[in-house]
């Protein structure tokens, strides 16, 4: 009598009598199976889809293929060179043709997952009517056969004429135990019925529904979601993002970088990358946010993530001191590329060129690398007095420099290189379904595992000798051993409240 399946009950009797693990098929199903030749194809497909065996087989196939997808090198993530290194050309060709180098995006994998979803839906729909019938109609009044068949039961002898008192005592006890008993009217007496957590019978459907929600979200994202990359330097603004494969995408608004930086730990490893972003729509700044890794900017259904940070190799700002030749205080000035700064009402200086790492060749200056190793600066000083452009070079490049004729001498103080910030942009319209599904699944699992549908019936019964007894029976859809403890406790309490010495009960059927 153990192992009573309680998720699907055709009737309470079927549940108690222990139909084993098989679904009690409804009469119409039986007829249809027997009338096989007239069973339509769609109906047969539906039956197969709803069968548990189908679900199990489908899941095994999903598991095997997913495992294969982790063991076989997958294409978007692995370099093509590594692929050719790992597999011989024939093997690689075979894997590619079968789609095994991109399992999770192959059409047959998507089809497989759709079939799994369909099987969940079919199985749920097929079982739902029975569950609903059980859920919606309480079996409140235990008849003779039921009272004999139920395994968890007890019989308490009661004095005659005390039927009403006994029932009211039982009412009180059940109330205290949290069962909220109701009075049921029978032919010529009353009985009691109390239950808790009826909803847990439907909890399993909540769990499966949540799975479907998650699948839906994933599918939406697979079809309509996309990811792209965007690099910005300080002050730069862009409306275009670059997906990994495919042409540039246009955004309905612009993203501007107002600043970016990196903080390091004492040992030099990166601690924090940040970017000050502004969303610009129709020329107006609509949103500002400083983003870091783990904290994206969200606007218009798009999310901007801090992905990376690095040097562009270009100059951001140069800090100089300019000392006038004919005496006078030295000036400090900050100048950017191609920027013109006035030194005095008569002279200006422009930063014409900057080389972070310069080399000389053929009388020309060229950039050897992007790293700040050997900088060279080319300034052009325009003096109203001299009325010509003077080329100042730091360090002085022979043949190019005219430092001597410059009214000011310059000294470089500090160099600030320009950095770019790398942003990951993603559009995931389906993620809300996914998170909703996760929450619903959490709730569903709690309901499934931690809420037990338990029922207790109390009815007066007269035995063959005419002795009045109080019959008590109980049932729970899971955690039966814990329920039996509670049942014992309730019976003990009833006995003590009725102040009756527990005589030998007619049966001690506390079977599992």
């Amino acid at each position: 009598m153990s192992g009573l399946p309680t998720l699907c009950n055709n009737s309470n009797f079927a549940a108690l009598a222990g139909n084993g693990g098989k679904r009690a098929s409804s009469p119409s199903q039986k007829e249809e199976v027997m009338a096989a030749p007239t069973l339509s194809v769609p109906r047969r497909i539906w039956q197969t889809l709803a069968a548990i065996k189908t679900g199990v087989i489908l899941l095994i196939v999903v598991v095997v293929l997913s495992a294969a997808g982790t063991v076989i090198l997958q294409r978007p993530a692995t370099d093509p060179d590594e692929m050719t290194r790992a597999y011989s050309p024939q093997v690689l060709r075979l894997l590619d043709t079968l789609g095994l180098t991109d399992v999770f995006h192959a059409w047959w994998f998507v089809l497989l997952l759709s079939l799994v979803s369909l099987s969940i839906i079919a199985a749920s729909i097929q079982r739902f009517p029975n569950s609903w019938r059980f859920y919606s109609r309480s079996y409140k009044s235990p008849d003779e056969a039921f009272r004999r068949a139920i395994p968890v039961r007890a019989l308490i002898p009661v004095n005659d004429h005390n039927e009403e008192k006994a029932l009211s005592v039982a009412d009180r006890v059940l109330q205290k135990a949290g069962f909220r008993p109701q009075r049921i009217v029978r032919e010529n007496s009353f009985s009691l019925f109390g239950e808790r957590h009826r909803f847990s019978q439907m909890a399993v459907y909540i769990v499966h529904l949540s799975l479907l929600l998650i699948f839906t979200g994933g599918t939406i994202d697979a079809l309509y979601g996309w990811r792209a990359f965007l690099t910005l330097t300080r002050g730069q603004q862009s409306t275009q993002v670059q997906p990994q494969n495919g042409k540039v995408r246009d955004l309905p608004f612009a993203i501007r970088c107002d600043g970016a930086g990196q903080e390091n730990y004492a040992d030099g490893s990166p601690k924090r990358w940040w970017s000050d972003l502004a969303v610009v729509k129709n020329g107006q700044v609509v949103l500002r946010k400083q983003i870091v890794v783990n904290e994206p900017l969200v606007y218009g259904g798009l999310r901007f993530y801090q992905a990376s940070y690095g040097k562009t190799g270009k100059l951001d700002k140069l800090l100089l001191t300019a000392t006038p030749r004919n005496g006078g205080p030295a000036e400090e000035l900050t100048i950017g590329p191609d920027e013109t700064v006035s030194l005095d009402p008569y002279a200006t200086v422009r930063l014409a060129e900057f080389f972070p790492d310069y080399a000389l060749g053929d009388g020309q200056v060229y950039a050897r690398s992007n790293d700040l190793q050997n900088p060279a600066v080319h300034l052009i000083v325009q003096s109203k007095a001299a009325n010509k452009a003077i080329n100042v070079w730091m360090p002085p490049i022979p043949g190019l420099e005219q430092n001597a004729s410059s009214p000011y001498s310059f000294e470089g103080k500090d160099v600030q290189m320009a950095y770019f910030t790398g942003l990951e942009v993603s559009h995931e319209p389906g993620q809300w379904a996914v998170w909703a599904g996760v929450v619903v699944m959490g709730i569903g699992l709690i309901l499934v595992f931690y809420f037990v549908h338990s029922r207790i019936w109390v009815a007066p019964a007269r035995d063959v000798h005419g002795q009045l007894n109080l019959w008590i029976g109980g049932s729970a859809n899971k955690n039966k051993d814990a329920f039996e403890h509670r049942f014992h406790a309730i019976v003990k309490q009833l006995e003590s409240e009725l102040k009756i010495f527990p005589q030998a009960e007619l049966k001690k059927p506390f079977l599992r």
Partner: protein
Amino acid sequence: MARAARVDQQPATGTTLVLMVGLGVAFLLFMAFLNVVKNGNLLNDSNLLYAALIFYCGAGTLYLGFGITGTPAYIRYASLATWAGLLANTGAVAHRWYEAGHPPFASIYEMLLMFVWTLAVLTLIAEKKYDVKVIGTVTMPVAIVGVVLMQLLRTEVHPLVPALQSTWLHVHVTLAMLAYAACALSFALAMMFLIQDQVKTETFLAATSLFGIATYLGILTRFEKWGGLSVVAWDPEQKAEVFLSRGVRLYLVIPDLGWLLLLVLAAVAAPLILYSVWRNGHNKAMLDIANRAMFLSISLQVLALLFFALRARDGRYASLDVDGLFPTSLAASPFILSGLVGSIFVSLLYLLLLWRREELQRMLPGAEELDRLTYKTIAIAFPLLTLMIAAGAYWANRTWGSYWSWDPKETWAAITWLVYAGYLHMRITRGWRGRRAAYFAILGFAIVMFTFFGVTYLLPGLHAYA
């Protein structure tokens, strides 16, 4: 059932052993205290861990005594020792957390710290709530090995790279640890069920041998053509692995280790082969030989562990990718180490079963109770697994903009989830009980182990952190 020759033991009476253990613990603590007071800084996590180790050793000895002789007095003091060890362990965790500025989940050292702590907690829960007193016989030795390993793997507190600085990471890793602990517990309960369900001892022999074969085959995927074994290089100043570039580790080849492990693999496989011969021929003597082969296997496994430990600690080795000689360390090969130690431990557990099966069966709960407990434990593990995957997905979404990228670790976590969902389905809907359910639970834990160890060791991916 053929039995190997019993080793002679002098069972100590209850009080003698307790007194000896008590004195030993007190002595060790006193010596450690003297040593530490000289250097100041009493309550750092290294000292607390050492205190925890001493207490766990005491507890382990008493639990083993209980496991072997069944004297109930041992349990009381073993519990006390476990409590004391847990207190010290908690102190170590708190100290490490405070020093590092983040919950201790960022390196193998910290993971081991939490693992040992969880083991102690589980031992006490199993004892108090479920009345399975003998579980300490298994968990305490594992905890001791764990603490010893931690002394070898001592790492500096490394500040976290930006991607790991998220609360959701801590939530995800905590849930992972809890879920894996629950799965491990369900595995232990399923094993105990099989013992109580009268599965034959020789079946356990075959299973132990099979486990050893799987472990050694896994390690031997790093076998190099001329008999060496690939291990990761270790920088002793940085106390970290050596990386050639982002995500690409520098591998060295320890010569001859591959051949040795191959030899040990043969010794580990021998019991299984002899078992098959016995099954086909029913020659009783074969089973006896198979059990002797198990002894040989254990001895050789210990040798392999010592050889590996010594080679890894001393010496500089060449790499296939770069010129020059580099050092390595046990800390660089946590999986090889776990595999070797784990296989020895499982083999020893088999010996315990072989010698003390009747006593074990007396002390463990009944088969049906264990079957129910297995289900209850998985009913706790499954929601934890679900939440772990969800938290991981949420963290990935916040960090990389994608909640599911079919990363090998993610995929195998999903497979684990599906397998346990399968167990629950089979049990609730199909009424699977007893042995079928136990095997399913064991399969589930095997998948958990692969997800935790195999994916990181055998398959590459984004989950390079753990």
